């Protein structure tokens, strides 16, 4: 694109009064050698017409809007896909953050504000120069069919719902028929008012609907050997369930392990398997994957004090369900349901329970009563968990004289006669309880299949399984409350029992949502744009491979496993797996990765455009790289609340702290600036980074850079990373002041002026 630039300075909202616009204009016209105009109300109809006139009459196509924050007035300053708009935040982050001049320091205050504004204008002009229009990445061929792994309620729902929206779907199921766990259910929970009666098992109807659906192909007794490729173009190798093939997904082999294997010091775990990066020419193509491989009943054999594995009259809820299904309840006159194994030690349910097991106990108590009108059921719980409308089901059960419910700390189950004696303390009866029953049912949990196996079997450089499973006890769940379908594997969406113990209603909702995300991912790949959280972003990272040194940092650090590599270690990008966070760009020591509108050179040039005054201790320059999702909005809100920001800082928004290349930090220090801070999201188990690892990776890089600064004779304290929340707008000023104070203490950068 042949760029024709013009900067537009808005003098509205107090900018014109607070700043010397003539001087600011000179920064653009003389220093940057670009056109510059000002207007008293740029976002108004007249202001926009003023810009559009330049566009139509003078061919201006690249504009620097020096006005309010880029977080506001996006539509007003969107001049179409063939124009470039860059914003300089003079309102929120300059005049609103300047504070009030101290008495006698009015001139200095004015000067500081003017200097800050000038730097933001310089950076905007530089950014405009270096920004190119994006060209969306297009796959050569796009396959829109969805692969659903697992043929239970979750999988079948995902398939049926995707089909209803017009998608083609293949379901694979390990077992020899569809239906999953639900095939074994005697009856289902009530789903509608008055939530009183159990409903007949509807799984047969769902199986029939799937089998009758011409959009859905069903492959039973089938498993995934490996999934290679990327959204829109996954290559899936299927195999007979339980078999081993050369296309099975290889285990992850790290750099160090590979060395050991090469030296013969370690056995190759992948011996006999095709390399992960090798595509199977016979693989079937899919656009997206829904993982719905469900759960298995928890092993409760450790609870011997409850008679588990010792006493045949003690069964799990799964076993009891089968007995009910097979009509084997005759002769059972009393059953105790034990919800919590902790006795007097703790009041938690069995592991992997969620609230489903409370409801299962209620349902199964009803089986006991429906089978034999004289039979008694005892439900011994610590906390009855029947959320939402399930409370009504619980209430209905309480009306049944034959079902006895109490809070109880069950301390033991021992054999007695043909049955068991259950003892419990802390009951609602005001006394300890001893019950003789024919059968005891333990409310065992539902363990996700992802706890035991790779399940998804990706042929990715970062390995075959989901990451972070440890954070969720093996569940393949999202870590984001706001975004429950986010996984670290783009185009793969999980639902049902693999991510939570759910009842049928929840499972159906969850699977329908997963189907939507699969369709959405394929549509986004088709348009060449990113999915969440940078939905619609047309840029993607481009690699200048000639200069790649095969250091593998980008392939290691990508939070989404978007980068595979070849035998030499050269990265093989998969743009449709990419979320555009730029962590690869931050990782690259050769600076060869970048986006059209965001790259090492662009930010580097912006940094260089900051004016660095010499010999003035009141004018140190400290750069804040601020995560644009949380830190930057927090800084904006600090401005809205008129919190004063230190006049020596210059803020640069970044896509994610993960994208911050340490070259920037070195460059800014060599350019004589005095310090740098990375301001981003919380990390650790409760991480808030929307790119999962960005802020954590960045802080590690910052620790490492300390050493190289020392060799330059610079104090490592000049660089720091801080974790903040978007709501920390009242704390930020102090945080920045403290940092600036420390740098002032260290004194100006000795490289100043070199």
């Amino acid at each position, binding site marked *: 694109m042949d760029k024709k630039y013009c900067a537009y300075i808005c003098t*509205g909202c107090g900018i014109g009064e607070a700043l010397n616009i003539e001087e600011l204009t000179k920064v653009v016209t003389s220093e940057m050698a670009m056109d510059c105009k000002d207007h008293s109300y740029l976002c108004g109809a007249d202001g926009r017409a003023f810009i559009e006139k330049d566009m139509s009459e003078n061919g201006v196509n690249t504009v620097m809007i020096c006005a309010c924050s880029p*977080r506001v007035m996006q539509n007003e300053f969107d001049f179409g896909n063939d124009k470039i708009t860059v914003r300089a935040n003079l309102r929120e982050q300059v005049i609103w953050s300047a504070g009030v001049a101290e008495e006698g320091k009015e001139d200095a205050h004015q000067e500081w504000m003017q200097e800050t504004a000038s730097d933001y204008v310089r950076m905007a002009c530089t950014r405009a120069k270096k920004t190119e229009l994006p060209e969306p990445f297009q796959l050569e061929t796009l396959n829109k069919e969805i692969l659903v792994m697992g043929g239970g309620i979750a999988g079948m729902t995902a398939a049926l719902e995707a089909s209803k929206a017009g998608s083609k779907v293949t379901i694979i199921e390990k077992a020899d028929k569809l239906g999953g766990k639900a095939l074994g259910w005697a009856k289902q929970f009530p789903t509608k008012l008055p939530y009183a009666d159990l409903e007949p098992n509807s799984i047969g109807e769902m199986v029939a609907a799937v089998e009758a659906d011409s959009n859905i192909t069903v492959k039973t007794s089938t498993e995934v050997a490996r999934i290679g490729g990327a959204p829109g173009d996954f290559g899936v190798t299927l195999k007979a369930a339980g078999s081993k093939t050369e296309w099975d997904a290889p285990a992850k082999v790290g750099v160090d392990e590979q060395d050991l294997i090469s030296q013969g010091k370690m056995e190759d775990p992948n011996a006999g398997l095709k390399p992960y990066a090798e595509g199977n020419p016979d693989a079937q193509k899919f656009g997206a994957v829904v993982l719905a491989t469900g759960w298995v009943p928890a092993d409760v054999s450790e609870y011997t004090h409850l008679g588990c594995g010792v006493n045949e009259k003690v069964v799990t809820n799964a076993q009891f369900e089968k007995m009910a299904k097979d009509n084997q309840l005759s002769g059972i006159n009393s059953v105790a349901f034990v919800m919590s194994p902790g006795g007097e030690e703790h009041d938690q349910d069995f592991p992997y*329970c969620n609230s489903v097991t409370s409801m299962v106990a209620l349902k199964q108590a009803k089986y006991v009563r429906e089978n034999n009108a004289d039979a008694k059921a005892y439900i011994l719980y610590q906390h*009855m968990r029947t959320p*939402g409308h399930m409370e009504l089901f619980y209430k209905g059960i309480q009306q049944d004289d034959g079902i006895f419910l109490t809070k109880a700390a069950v301390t033991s189950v021992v054999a007695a006669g043909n049955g068991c004696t259950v003892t419990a303390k802390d009951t609602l009866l005001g006394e300890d309880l001893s019950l003789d029953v024919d059968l005891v049912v333990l409310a065992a949990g539902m363990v996700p299949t992802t706890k035991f196996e790779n399940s998804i079997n990706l042929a990715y450089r970062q390995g075959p399984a989901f990451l972070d499973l440890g954070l969720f006890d093996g569940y393949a769940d999202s870590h984001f*409350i706001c975004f429950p379908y986010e996984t670290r594997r783009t185009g793969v969406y999980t639902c049902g029992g693999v991510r939570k113990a759910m009842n049928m209603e929840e499972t159906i909702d969850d699977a329908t*949502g997963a189907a*939507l995300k699969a369709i959405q991912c394929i549509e986004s790949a088709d348009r060449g744009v990113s999915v969440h959280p940078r939905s619609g972003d047309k840029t993607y990272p481009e690699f200048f491979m000639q200069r790649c040194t095969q250091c593998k940092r980008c392939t290691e650090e990508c939070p989404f496993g978007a980068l595979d590599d070849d035998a030499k270690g050269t990265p093989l990008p998969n743009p449709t797996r990419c979320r555009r966070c730029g962590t690869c760009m931050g990782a690259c020591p050769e600076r060869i990765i970048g986006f059209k509108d965001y790259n090492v050179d662009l930010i580097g040039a912006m940094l260089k455009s900051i004016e660095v005054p010499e010999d003035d201790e009141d004018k140190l320059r400290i750069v804040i790289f601020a995560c644009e999702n949380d830190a930057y909005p927090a800084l904006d809100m600090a401005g809205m*609340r008129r919190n004063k920001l230190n006049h020596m800082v210059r803020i640069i928004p970044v896509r994610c702290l993960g994208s911050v290349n340490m070259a920037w930090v070195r460059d800014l220090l060599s350019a004589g600036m005095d310090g740098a801070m990375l301001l981003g999201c919380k990390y650790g188990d409760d991480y808030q980074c929307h790119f999962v690892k960005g802020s954590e990776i960045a802080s590690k890089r910052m620790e490492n850079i300390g050493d190289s600064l020392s060799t330059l004779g610079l104090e490592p304290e000049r660089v720091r990373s801080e974790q903040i*929340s978007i709501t920390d707008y009242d704390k930020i000023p102090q945080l920045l002041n403290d940092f600036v104070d420390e740098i002032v203490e260290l004194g100006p950068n000795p490289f100043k002026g070199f």
Partner: protein
Amino acid sequence: MTDEQGTSGAILVVGGGISGLTSALEAAEVGNDVFLVEKNAYFGGRVAQLNQYFPKLCPPSCGLEINFKRIKDNRKIRPYTMTTVKSVTGGPGNYEVTLETAPRYVNANCTACGECTIACSDEIDNDFNLGMNKSKAAYLPHEMAFPRRYVINKAALSAAGAAAVKAACKYNAVDLEMQTETKVIKVGAIIWATGWTPYDPTKMENLKFGQSQAIVTNMMIERMAAPGGPTDGAIVRPGDGKEPESFAFVQCAGSRDENHLEFCSYVCCMATFKQMTYIRERYPEAKIYVFYIDLRTPGKYEKFREKLMADQNSTFIKGKVAEIIPEADGGVTVVAENAVTGNKIRQKVDMAVLATGMQPSLAVQGVPVALAMDNSGFIISDPEKGMIAAGCARKAADVVTTNQSSTAAALKAIQVSRRS
């Protein structure tokens, strides 16, 4: 959007809280046109008022920021604030909906400079902060308000205030003559994401809300704990500003009660544990008493509960609160019976927090069209008719579950638009 009047493929999402935002964005990012209408002056709904989410203790505004950015970046969505549905005619694939937009008295010229607020002398109760403080009658509802455009409460403006506000605006954005506007759109399907409202605590006469400043609701605690809230983050007794040394949480305040809300509101137990962390952060030594029927913190929430139950200064009593008695010193006495020991408990505390439940908003507001609803006011989805309920308009749920059901609702609506 290709057609401002809508098309048979377009989707109307009613309600711009986390549920509606999710439905609207997920549908639009598939490629459908979406109208998103919200009755408040800002998007974000109930979660915008929360200080943190459980169990991560992260601020909801973080996710809202991303969602707002997704809206700004997506021309498929047309967001309307202060807008409600007046009537719906037609059928699935072919609904004609009349929308009514209440006057904001600030037009699109607004630059959000804030001069009107500075000039305005008239004050109103701050609804966003549940009336716990005042805001000017010309105001931005809160820092994160999207769209960032001011609002004027015209009824609260004095003649002088009106003149001052008008004079303060350099951009001719104040329009006190603004009228209610109606607009008719065509859509294929409607997602009802009308959310919930805290159950009116005055309805439980035994809990004496309103009779003592020491009795507050869980939503009030959220606002107090929030950095931009009425107390800038301090949890203090309204009225006398006392820093409480003891707290009682009254669980199931309205929920699981056939005289009030017969269902379980799903979130209140976890909300209480979360609010215990707010209290601990501010008052490490304060005594906390939690009165409950069951502690419903299933699944991965158990870890969070476990951590807080280990707190030495907290006591958990299985027993429903029978009565709260205001005391002369500004505190209250909470009366309950311990269901396990049978002991009657009278616990004096400085502040009692009612864990009020969630009532579906439409049960309070009424419905503009004949929607299938249950006797609590939750909407029963009817995808065949293109009438789809999402989030807490359909059932009491936490944010994760709400977002799952809202994503699902988006697909159900898309299916209507793709029916041949």
